[in-house]
């Protein structure tokens, strides 16, 4: 019964997201698979955003607040029906998959099922318990069960060890499950990781299929689902897999932005979702914005720059109030010092050791599987594609993300920065794995026009 209720709770989150995705302008050009994946991501982010806004306004989550999360969705449904009647029949037609693609899909389904079973039989992990599950329980308890639990958690210094300032999307999802099953059960939350991974695989395959064909897209999806670190972290309640999937969605959204004015507002939404899942999202939102603007200026499409302001507003709305709320409390994260000229110059001597650690991490087959071999091969085989703006865009974001992941520990506040990096650097690089596989897909194809980038290619070349 608990598993049924958990499934129902997940389905409702997906339905929330499905309504929201249906409102996006470029939805009509997406395949069903991609829309399904994005729906899950949107629904989860919506629940996180809703939770933090309720806490800011009302002080804590209550039973009524959880129920009321459906109200904006119901209101949005009216616009969805309006759009559906207007946009009917505009979707891209995708050819039927061949036998090989179907076989690959079967293997992929077996892999994902296996990962789900493994995850359900694993524990939440150390950070899963002490960073995320605690927040989930605080949200679930609200003030209904323990008076003042929420305020105590977010507004006292006692809980700093659990990073009380981390975003609430993942804890809100877990608390949502608790609400539905009527009690705290960390085992059930182990389904969240595989669900995000499935969403990511769906987004990747859905996006790549029109470009690379169903077989190659499915193989790339299987590659993503079988990367050792991905499988390892899927079986925890960490936020790294959800963030990696959100980053993939944002990169795809920005790629569409580059090719299609109609997709501009989608991109804004995906950028705003990033910091709702992990704080690193602020960095990546800035990088994605910068890379998109540089390419847009290079193409002489200066009028698109106004969307920069929309993105900034969206990101500010998604996390601004929450950060202000936290700033007024004691929930301040202390793992990193505030960037300054002094702190940066003091940390420069750490670079050689951080480089060694980053290199040994990203070149390890026990961490990233065959990707350390496959990605350079893909760059070698598809070097001609590197002249195309969309490929340059994805590669630039990956490069910036790699530098960030390797050297952010220059600002580490730990007494032993190497220990900090040692425990964290692989998870930071994991955020880039789905996007790296996306890059492989884009490199190993002759014709990018199916994703709507022909226009850019002409303008950029």
């Amino acid at each position, binding site marked *: 019964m608990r598993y049924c209720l958990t499934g129902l709770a997940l389905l409702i989150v997906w339905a929330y997201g499905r309504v929201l995705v249906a409102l996006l302008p470029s939805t009509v050009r997406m395949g069903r698979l991609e829309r399904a994946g994005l729906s899950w991501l949107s629904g989860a982010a919506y629940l996180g955003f809703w939770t933090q806004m309720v806490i800011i306004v009302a002080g804590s989550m209550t039973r009524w607040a959880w129920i009321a999360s459906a109200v904006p969705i119901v209101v949005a449904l009216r616009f969805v029906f309006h759009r559906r009647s207007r946009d009917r029949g505009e979707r891209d037609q995708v050819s039927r998959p061949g036998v090989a693609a179907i076989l690959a899909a079967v293997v992929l389904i077996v892999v994902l099922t296996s990962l789900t079973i493994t995850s359900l*039989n694993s524990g*939440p992990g150390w950070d899963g*318990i002490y960073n995320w599950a605690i927040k989930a329980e605080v949200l679930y308890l609200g003030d209904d069960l323990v008076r003042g639990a929420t305020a105590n958690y977010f507004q006292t210094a006692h*809980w700093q*060890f659990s990073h009380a300032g981390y975003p609430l999307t993942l804890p809100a999802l877990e608390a949502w499950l608790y609400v539905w099953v009527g009690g705290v059960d960390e085992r059930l939350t182990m389904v969240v990781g595989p669900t995000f991974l499935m969403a990511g695989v769906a987004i990747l395959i859905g996006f790549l299929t029109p470009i690379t064909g169903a077989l190659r897209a499915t*193989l790339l999806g*299987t590659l993503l689902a079988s990367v050792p670190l991905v499988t390892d972290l899927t079986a925890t309640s960490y936020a790294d897999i959800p963030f990696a999937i959100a980053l993939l969605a944002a990169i795809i959204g920005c790629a569409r932005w580059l090719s299609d004015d109609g997709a501009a507002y989608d991109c804004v939404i995906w950028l705003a979702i990033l910091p709702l899942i992990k704080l690193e999202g602020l960095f990546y939102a800035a990088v994605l914005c910068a890379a998109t603007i540089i390419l847009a200026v290079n193409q002489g499409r200066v009028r698109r720059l106004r969307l920069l302001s929309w993105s900034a507003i969206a990101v500010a709305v998604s996390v601004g109030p929450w950060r202000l709320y936290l700033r007024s409390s004691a929930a301040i994260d202390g793992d990193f010092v505030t960037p300054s000229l002094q702190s940066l110059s003091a940390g420069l001597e750490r670079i050689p050791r951080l480089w060694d650690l980053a290199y040994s991490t990203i070149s390890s087959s026990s961490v990233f599987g065959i990707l350390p071999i496959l990605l350079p091969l893909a760059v070698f085989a598809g070097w001609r594609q590197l002249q195309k703006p969309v490929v340059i865009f994805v590669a630039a974001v990956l490069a910036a993300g790699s530098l960030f992941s390797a050297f952010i520990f220059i600002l580490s506040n730990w007494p032993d920065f190497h220990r900090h990096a040692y425990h964290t650097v692989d998870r930071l690089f994991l955020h880039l794995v789905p996007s790296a596989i996306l890059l492989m897909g884009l490199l190993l194809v002759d014709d990018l026009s199916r994703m709507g980038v022909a226009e850019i290619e002409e303008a950029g070349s």
Partner: protein
Amino acid sequence: MKRDPPRTDHDPAAAGKRSHSLRTLLSLPIRVPEQTRRSFFRHGVTAILALAAAWQVTRLPVPQTLVRESEWSVAEIAGPYGRALQFFDQVLPARSTVTVFKDSRFDRTERTRFQAAYLLYPRVVRTGIEGDRFEYFVANSLAAVPRPVHGAGTIVTYHGNEGGSDVSVVFGTGTSGGLTLSRVPAIAARTVIVNLSDGSSIIRVSGQIEGNPVLLVGASDVYEALERAPGVLEFRTRLPVDGMNLSLLRESSPNPSRRTVRRVRKSG
């Protein structure tokens, strides 16, 4: 009209030139149609991707269904942690509070055990989370440790109510537990080790931390570490965990031998 002589392939001079020209060798008349070349590339890439995916898939972990077969399996995995939490679950009254000390040098085995224990007896651990306080108090006891999280000597405290905890527990009584003890001399001076029938051990510390009784939980390899501390008392017993009761824990005297605990050695 003068006609050019017919071209032949038997011109010795030209043939000699070609035979010594790498450029000529490379321009042998092997013409690969563009379509074929593209097709070869496309299928080659797909084949490589398929091989790569297959290689990775074969290295996936096997689903661990064993863990969920029964609570007994979980308890086995939980090991001493599970037994300790089981003890709390059975002995402590509702809303009891437990203070847990854990050196954060968790290896994978310890982490798995702790998680399994946590899953098995969530009520005990959750008493801390449902209460108003859940904090580290590393600064009070382990001032030498600069950071509470991820550093050696971490002390985790679970409190269930405002009154503080009823029992203090040190998880990990191997090297890490010994390290913790060595940094808290007041505890190390009055430590009792209770061995269980299955080979694991519960180490009783008769001293108090912040006014609470202390229970250490871990494997038996702590003895060596403890023996280095002055005033350590070691006891061995075949007393099962669920045979203990709270009154035993609450003893302030370092002499628990009045029950089934048998004193084996005294040192220091």
